[in-house]
């Protein structure tokens, strides 16, 4: 009964053997996976740098040199995450047949399979969530009610942990297939024989091109020379240094433009109340420093204003002290920030009053804003209202 046998085989649910392409091979998965691992490692390391830089108290002070350190690491963070998206999609396409494998029958093997499958489910879930929420956050599409910062931080450990377990489980296979030619069939399913129009090397090459295209078109929107190529980047240099929180968002338009504006500087029982003209009375210094955002963009500007340490010295405060900087903002994140002593003492740290030769615009922090080298953009307090030297 040839016909009914064919009909029966058509009725069986799809399994790993339903997939015939030679591209779905451990040799391909391991090579894409290797670079995916590099991307995840880079994202984790640069993410930890950013979280450490934003810690209010740091056992080892975050360095003020090089001034471009934060902008480069945070671009790397976003670029490695963006590059990981095409790589993860290719990787999951390559290993998809394994999702349809039937569980083994013996209890011991079943338990092991459940553990391994469970770790992979956690890895896939957290990896996709990390990449998606990160991507959305960069364009400020906040499609969630949880704290992005806390959740992204927590899930980063889950992702890297599950990834290490995955590597441990697959280590013998990885060693085997990375040691031999990509077209070798070791560890391939017997059904994975079909030669399509694309070779394994071709698929790898396309994956690298996809990752490179994603990085170039989405993440270099504020890089001089490359900005125009980055046609999908949320930011550009067209309007000068980009802005995250506008004066309207922060509801400071009235207080920041009021003639009653004062900047209060305190040290112990000393209290100095300064108008913007008083700040202009200090020796003015100009430094070229970037505003670098955790979202991966950064643009350097020429900032002019008094050195923070000169203003503090007017109260008699000694060097080597942390400083608390408060904004005119009544609410919202980074309203109050702690500036560590090494940043306070750095000669490039300014209370900026002008940007690129023009008085500071309202959205850039008029009447006065903090600008320090190698510091997260969110902590470069705008609309400075109070500076307290801490004991």
């Amino acid at each position, binding site marked *: 009964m040839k016909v009914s046998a064919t009909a029966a085989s058509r009725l069986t649910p799809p399994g790993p053997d339903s997939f015939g*392409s030679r591209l779905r091979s451990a040799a391909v998965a391991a090579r894409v996976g290797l670079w995916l691992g590099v991307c995840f490692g880079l994202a984790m390391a640069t993410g930890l740098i950013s979280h450490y830089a934003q810690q209010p108290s740091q056992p080892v002070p975050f360095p003020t040199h090089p001034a471009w350190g934060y902008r480069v690491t945070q671009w790397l963070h976003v670029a490695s995450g*963006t590059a990981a*998206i*095409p790589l993860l*999609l290719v990787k999951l*396409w390559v290993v998809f047949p394994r999702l349809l494998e039937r569980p083994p029958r013996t209890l011991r093997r079943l338990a092991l399979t459940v553990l391994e499958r469970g770790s992979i489910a956690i890895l*896939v*879930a957290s990896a*996709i*969530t990390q990449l*998606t929420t990160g*991507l*959305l956050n960069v*364009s*400020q*599409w906040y*499609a*969630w*009610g*949880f*704290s992005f910062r*806390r*959740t992204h931080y*927590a*899930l980063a*450990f*889950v*992702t*890297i*942990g*599950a*990834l*290490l*377990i*995955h590597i*441990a*489980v697959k280590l013998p296979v990885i060693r085997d297939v990375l040691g031999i030619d990509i077209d070798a069939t070791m560890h391939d399913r017997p059904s994975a024989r079909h030669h*399509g*129009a*694309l070779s394994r090397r*071709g698929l790898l090459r*396309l994956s690298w091109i*996809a990752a490179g*295209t*994603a990085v170039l*078109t*989405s993440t270099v*929107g504020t890089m001089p020379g490359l900005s125009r190529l980055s*046609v*999908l*980047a*949320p*930011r*550009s240099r*067209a*309007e000068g240094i*980009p*802005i995250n929180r*506008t004066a309207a968002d922060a509801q400071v338009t009235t207080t920041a433009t009021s003639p009653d504006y004062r900047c209060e500087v305190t040290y112990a029982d000393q209290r100095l109340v300064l108008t913007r003209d008083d700040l202009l009375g200090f020796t003015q210094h100009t430094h070229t420093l970037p505003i670098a955002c955790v979202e991966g963009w950064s643009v350097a500007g020429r900032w002019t204003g008094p050195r923070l340490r000169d203003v503090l010295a007017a109260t008699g405060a000694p060097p080597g002290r942390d400083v608390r900087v408060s904004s005119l903002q009544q609410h919202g994140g980074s309203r109050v920030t702690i500036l560590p002593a090494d940043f306070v003492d750095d000669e490039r740290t300014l209370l900026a009053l002008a940007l690129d030769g023009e008085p500071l615009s309202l*959205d850039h922090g008029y009447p006065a804003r903090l600008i320090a080298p190698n510091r997260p953009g969110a902590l470069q307090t705008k609309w400075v209202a109070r500076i307290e030297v801490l004991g």
Partner: protein
Amino acid sequence: MRAVLTTLGAALAGYGAWLLLSRESSAQVREALTWLAASVILHDAVLSPVVIALGWFGGRLLPRWAAVGGAALVVLGPVTLIAIPVLGRFGADPTNPTLLGRDYWSGWLVIAVVTVIAACVGARWRELRSPRGRQQEGRVHGARARRRRRSHRA
């Protein structure tokens, strides 16, 4: 080595899970868990079957030159997914012209056109370079050979 990796991995994942569950309100934790579950379901049950179906039908119903489309899709598919937030301008803020200030649909169109042209050029170049392709160049009945190959595949 494997034991060290497994132990370290379990410790890191456990620390992350503890951070996730202990630092936010229960409603926020529930939403984060929903994101995690939806990520897997959307990928495994929606995106993957669609891509696999595209590959299956493309491989069987379309002529061989359409494989160029498959190659273009490996690049254009992920790049388009990445472009969704800016194409939809979901995060736009009317008071902030420095955010989402480009014409993203035109940009995407340029990427699509360049990708398809590059895929065609790449495919033609590979064809000319392969020994079979060079043979076919000099022969009138190259099409017949291609047909024969295709029937062999099926």
